[in-house]
């Protein structure tokens, strides 16, 4: 810790005392670069003009026609021809113009994206023709995003795009971000801005850490008391089923999965306000009024969970549920004589991780019972504590040292997600995005087969110090660094190169109404927040 402190000082020294030297240079900004960097891209000098009045999106004959894509056409038309920002220009003669983007989607439309969705696409701008081709509708969405990013305003105010070939696909299938709506509530309108930002960064999983110790804002139809008693305010600080549906739909239209997390058996204080399933903590021989994790010895626990999980699997369409399972505090269990008795009966000895195992196993059995098709994601502790889980379980690694953990988890044959190096709630002064950028999920000892089990990663924005007032600016564009790591090729690692592109991308987000904050030192955007 002293080392950390010392480094912080050393850093202050660099920036403050050399303000004149180090920070004089404003970060160079790219123009019309696609972010995250496509797998393969060739650009040519030829420019084509786009004209608001004549441009349109069109399906090629034979293409699948999907609602999600048709709606995206409208959305991207608005983004590209943002009427607030468009300048009047005289069309220049003798410049080629692009009158339409034609799209070919090969595979039949799907309702929801999933972990296996193919997001690849090919985009070709040449000889006044723009052509986008993808296997699935989800790939089409990613291609439209890239297309919109390549269009820039030229000096005379006209919108132009360079002749370009792009062949693109994600490196990882699971590119997520966790928002915590329990420590502070975040209104759905802000979550939607966040989903817009995810789309702009080609991220595809919204990990919704919806409840926790502090509050229970999810309105359950089977157990309405959970939010009535557990939310900060049962009327204003809740997600009604309409809110939840709206968010899932908003995400679906952007090719984003919503993976909900109902974390148990720890992190459940807010549940206990209405449902008597928490462990009573004891001081000496008497309950002291405090409660610990869910009581695994109580039958009520499981009948409640069965009904609640039935509801959750119906509300959240994604195949995966995040079941939490992290940071179970054993001290309360240890204090409780009934639990001691139970442990004795089961022959657990003093090993409370066995009790945790017992609980997790029951929970997983319940899910298999109520929704056999569901998959689950769990925090690493569950596996660390040797709980047997289904082979297709996804394990999220959040503790250090993560390389060892990833190595262990994948050796066991589980698929894994990395989030340890991407806890974006931990802020520090300066351009901390570089350390997120440099973290690569393959940097662990393991075979190719093990590496192939890493399906992606998640940036986490825990909510202790963020709410609607600052969650967007704090999350973006720092998360963009993670987005590129998870989408682009493994060898896209040049920080200096990324700097200018993220700078452009930040300005692009601001233009789209996302208040992404400065992350690179001094500079400016053509269109600032509220200019």
């Amino acid at each position, binding site marked *: 810790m002293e080392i*950390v402190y010392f480094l*912080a*000082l050393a850093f*202050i*020294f660099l920036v403050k*005392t050399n*303000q*004149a*030297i180090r*920070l*004089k240079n404003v970060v160079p900004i790219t123009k019309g670069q696609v972010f995250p960097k496509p797998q393969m891209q060739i650009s040519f000098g030829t420019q084509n003009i786009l004209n608001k009045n004549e441009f349109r999106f069109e399906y090629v004959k034979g293409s699948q026609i999907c609602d999600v894509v048709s709606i995206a056409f409208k959305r991207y038309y608005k983004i590209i021809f943002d009427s*607030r920002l468009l300048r009047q220009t005289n069309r220049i003669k003798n410049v080629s113009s692009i009158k339409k983007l034609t799209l070919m989607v090969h595979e039949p439309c799907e309702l929801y994206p999933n972990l296996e969705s193919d997001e690849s696409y090919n985009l070709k701008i040449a000889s006044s023709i723009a052509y986008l081709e993808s296997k699935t509708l989800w790939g089409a969405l990613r291609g439209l995003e890239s297309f919109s990013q390549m269009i820039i305003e030229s000096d005379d105010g006209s919108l132009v795009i360079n002749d370009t070939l792009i062949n693109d696909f994600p490196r990882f299938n699971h590119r997520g971000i966790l928002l915590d709506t329990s*420590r*502070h*509530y*975040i*209104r759905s309108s*802000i979550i939607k801005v966040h989903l817009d930002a995810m789309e702009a960064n080609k991220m595809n999983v919204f990990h919704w850490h919806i409840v926790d*110790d*502090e*509050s229970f804002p999810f309105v359950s139809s089977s157990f309405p008391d959970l939010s009535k008693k557990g939310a*900060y*305010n049962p*009327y*204003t600080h809740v997600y009604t089923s309409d809110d939840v549906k709206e968010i899932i739909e908003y995400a679906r239209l952007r090719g984003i999965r919503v993976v909900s997390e109902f974390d148990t058996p720890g992190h459940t*204080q*807010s549940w206990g306000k209405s449902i008597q399933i928490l462990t009573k903590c004891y001081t000496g021989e008497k309950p002291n009024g*405090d409660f610990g994790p869910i009581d695994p010895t109580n039958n009520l626990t499981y009948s409640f969970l069965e009904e609640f999980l039935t509801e959750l699997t119906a509300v959240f369409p994604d195949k995966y549920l995040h079941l939490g399972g*992290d*940071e179970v505090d054993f001290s309360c269990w240890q204090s409780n004589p009934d639990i001691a008795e139970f442990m004795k009966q089961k022959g657990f000895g003093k090993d409370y991780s066995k009790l945790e195992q017992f609980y997790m196993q029951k929970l997983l059995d319940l899910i298999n019972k109520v929704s056999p098709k569901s998959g689950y994601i769990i*925090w690493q502790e569950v596996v660390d504590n040797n709980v047997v889980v289904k082979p297709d379980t996804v394990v999220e690694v*959040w*503790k250090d040292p993560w390389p060892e953990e990833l190595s262990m988890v994948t050796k066991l044959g589980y698929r894994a997600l990395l989030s340890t190096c991407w806890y974006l*709630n*931990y*802020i*520090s*002064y*300066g351009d901390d995005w570089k350390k997120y950028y440099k973290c690569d999920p393959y940097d662990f000892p393991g075979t190719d087969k093990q590496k192939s089990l890493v399906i992606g990663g998640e940036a986490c924005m825990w909510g*202790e*110090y*963020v*709410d*609607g*007032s600052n969650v967007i*600016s*704090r999350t973006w564009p720092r998360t963009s660094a993670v987005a590129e790591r998870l989408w682009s090729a493994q060898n896209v690692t040049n920080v200096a190169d990324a700097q200018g592109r993220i700078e452009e991308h930040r300005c692009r987000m601001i233009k789209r109404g996302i*208040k992404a*904050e*400065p*992350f690179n*030192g*001094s*500079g*400016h955007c*053509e269109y*600032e*927040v*509220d*200019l």
Partner: protein
Amino acid sequence: MLKLLIVLGFLILNIVQAKLYYIEVKYPLLGKESPPGSPWPMPHFINGTSDQILLLRKKKFQIKTNLEVQCDIVSENVKHYRNVIFPPKIYNPQRKRLREHKYLNVLSINIAQSKECPKYPHSNMDESYNLTISSNEAKLNANSVWGALRGLETFSQLTYFDTDNKLVMNDSTVIIDKPRFVYRGLLVDTARHFIPVPILKKQIDAMAYHKLNVLHWHIVDDQSFPFELKTYPNVTEKGKYSDAHVYTQNDVKSIVEHARLRGIRVIPEFDTPGHVESFGRAFPEFITVCWKDGKPYQPIFGVQGAAEIINPTNEYVYPVLKDILTEFRDVFPDEYIHLGNDEVYYECWKSNPDIAKWMEKMNFSDYHHLQAYYSSKLLKIVQDLDKKSTVWQDVYDNGVDLQKGTQIQIWKDSSILPEHGTWSDYLNKVTKDGYAAILSSPWYINFISYGYQEWYKFYKVEPLANFTGDAEQAKLLIGGEAAIWSEYVDGGNLDSRLWPRLSAIAERLWSPAHVNDPEEAKFRLDEQRCRLLRRGIVAAPILNGYCGNYEYGMAKSNIFDPVFNYGWPNVQ
């Protein structure tokens, strides 16, 4: 997955670690929660004993004054504080008269100088006031209009919404209040990132909500020159980021006017001879060419740029600077101009052969003499313009003779650079030499860090902790100033970076020294953050929990309400 151990790693020193992992239900917080309507910053004396609640109704409530002259400062604030007290969207008029309740219908403001309407806030303004709420009457007494403004702010903070959403305040409250320090400032840097005018105006409002009284406008720097210069339009033309990133003189005037009405001075900084890259684009001949290995225009990484600092030996510099400072004088009415003069590193001057020759001719043995030569000329220009100067401490450290009355801003500390002294040493020295000092070193709030109640470190600073001088000398420590250098701040996150972290400093500068227990203060500060949200200021959370359905993004949010915004073209 907030993990106790990880958080410990990020802990700032001196914090009670046991309470670090903050979940109220498991680990109750230290300190006592303050009752609703607790003011921030804490007044010098406050006594509230009654449980009697008074209701306020927008239709009936009036603010009256004894002023015998028209005074826009007062009338504007009477209007403004009606919005503050009865915030749009949140305040719901009670339809029925509630018989069992008592009402407060009038706040009477009594200003001793009832025939005076001062024009501009200034360094000697009397900001003291007394406020009594008793037997359904509220009386605010102040010597000057400025005290009345501060008292009005406190009055507005005593009102709160009770659990039935009625707007109320407690009867029987006596407050006697005055600032501990006369200078309570905020530096805003608009050169590294441009801050749009409407967003700056909101910060001025928020400053008034904290009884801060100086906006130090670090308007230009190396990176850009957003100030519209009329005498040398080329400087702006070449120094600005873009056309959209310019404060026209009308913009500047409207900001100064807005600040005036809130009792806040605006001190502009024209920082020279360093920090002038953007200025030098129009006047390259005024900038010292740095040499290396017998070649001109050579940067040395970490030491010097290729051309980065004014060349004091060029006599044509001074008339131009005089013209610019004259323009600053005309646009900024405050009695002070900040001349910068920080971070003047001699390497570039030393490398330049022409300067060496000139020094020889002038018989200057040391580069301090060169800086002294330059600085005294500038100080003289400001004096001739009938203004006083504020400078960063570097000039003083380098032994430049400064006129009495020059204010020195302390920003160095051994925690920043080992060869520096401590800020206490600098305060001791500067005030011993008879100069007024402004403390900034511990309050660079652009430096963020993660951890439990990061603002404690700002709050716990005691400016006089290691002060060695006598009471007379202590008076020369006129106050402090927080600085938000804007490398990582723009219009999108300025509010949430400033507030409520800056609130901690505001209390240190206004309230008595003994109000210094952060464990107690945190609840009151949390209340202040909710108060700010009700007034449309985007303040970030400090404790888990919630304010109400007026948070950012929620149905009754005032963040974009027109009464708390000033010409946003893009109100959402």
